[in-house]
């Protein structure tokens, strides 16, 4: 793992622990974007994973139906423990333990979400789409962003269309584009 990437992930894990403990949804959401730069530049899978996890926690934390359930206490404690173990593993450069902890963390969230969620979509997949969209926003193609987050183009495009990402940076006037297509199709 690149040293700067490791430092960033440790900071996000520390911040995530604090934010979850204080039930700060906005802080968690903000933290989930901190590793997107590294994900975009280095195509770093660990940066991707932590972004998905932290964003998922923010979505879970903001839903009353999740927090009021019987499962909440155990889930909440479990998440704090995963965040702490992952941070401590990285602090000690124990990458194998870090990786195992994160994959268990994914399963833990997935099981909880399946029990509580009223929708077909699950929180982890939604987090992947949101963060994948962020990478596209950074100038990376849809195909590359989809590959990085293990998504299909379909899932990403469906979401990107609802954002304002394409509303800036016009490269050619629309009248020139229309003239071009009329020329291609020989439309008078």
């Amino acid at each position, binding site marked *: 793992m690149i040293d700067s990437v490791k430092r960033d992930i440790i900071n996000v894990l520390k911040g995530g622990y604090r934010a979850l403990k204080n039930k700060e949804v906005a802080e968690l959401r903000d933290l989930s974007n901190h590793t997107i730069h590294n994900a975009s*530049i280095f195509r770093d899978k660990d940066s991707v994973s932590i972004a998905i996890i932290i964003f998922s926690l923010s979505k879970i934390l903001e839903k009353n139906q999740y927090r009021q359930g019987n499962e909440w206490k155990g889930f909440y404690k479990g998440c704090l423990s995963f965040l702490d173990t992952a941070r401590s593993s990285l602090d000690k450069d124990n990458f194998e333990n870090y990786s195992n902890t994160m994959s268990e963390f994914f399963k833990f969230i997935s099981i909880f979400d399946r029990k509580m969620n009223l929708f077909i979509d699950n929180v982890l997949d939604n987090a992947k789409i949101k963060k994948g969209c962020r990478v596209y926003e950074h100038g*990376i*193609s849809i*195909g590359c962003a989809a590959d990085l987050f293990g998504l299909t183009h*379909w899932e990403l495009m469906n979401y990107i269309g*609802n954002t304002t*990402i*394409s509303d800036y940076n016009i490269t050619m006037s629309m009248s020139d584009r*229309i003239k071009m297509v009329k020329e291609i199709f020989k*439309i008078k």
Partner: protein
Amino acid sequence: MKALVFDTSSIISLALNNLLWIIRPLKKQFKGSFIISEAVRQEVIDKPIKNRRFMFEALTIKDILNEGYLSLIEDKEIEDKTKYLVNVANNIFKANNSYITILQHAEVECIVIAKHFNADACVVDERTLRFLVEDYNKLADILKNRLHTNIEINQENLNIFLNYSKDVKVIRSTELCIAAYEFGILDRYITDRKIHLELRKTLLEGVLWGLKFRGCAISETEINDALGFYGLLKG
């Protein structure tokens, strides 16, 4: 060769808007080939057909392909050239001492096929490839502003890519639908003659916004400019 080369994103935009059918009459008007690569076929048929959410759309694309309205291209020379050009494209922009992977094989392959067959244009709805071909500075600005870091450009690789792609025109599904609009192909949606003119505006506006909402990289300004081009803009 008279041809249009479609990438994954443009086929998806059309399919998600139930507009894939326009490929049939458009191809007749165009009198040329509509091409996709094997990698695109996998992205628009093989992968989504296993996904409950998009399997119906995948089936409609499969149908168009089976009917011969889309031609599938597989060629060793194109494959090799694509690998080379992907490597070039992904070694142009550098941040924090690392080259940024900006494009995927299937996206670059679209350009290579277009060059190989001297096609009329590529149909690409996603932003990154189009920006690299049309105005790399805009792409460099996006990378710089979004990544909050300095972007170095490998001029040699940039020149290789730009020289290769300089004659390739890029259109989007929106321009394809504008052609369909011009040919009257979309008129089947507006059969009420009494308010025909107003409906023509709604038709073009609705189609362009529909494509935008399903991921085609077109701005609100561009949509309004298109409506203005046809004298359909209010005020």
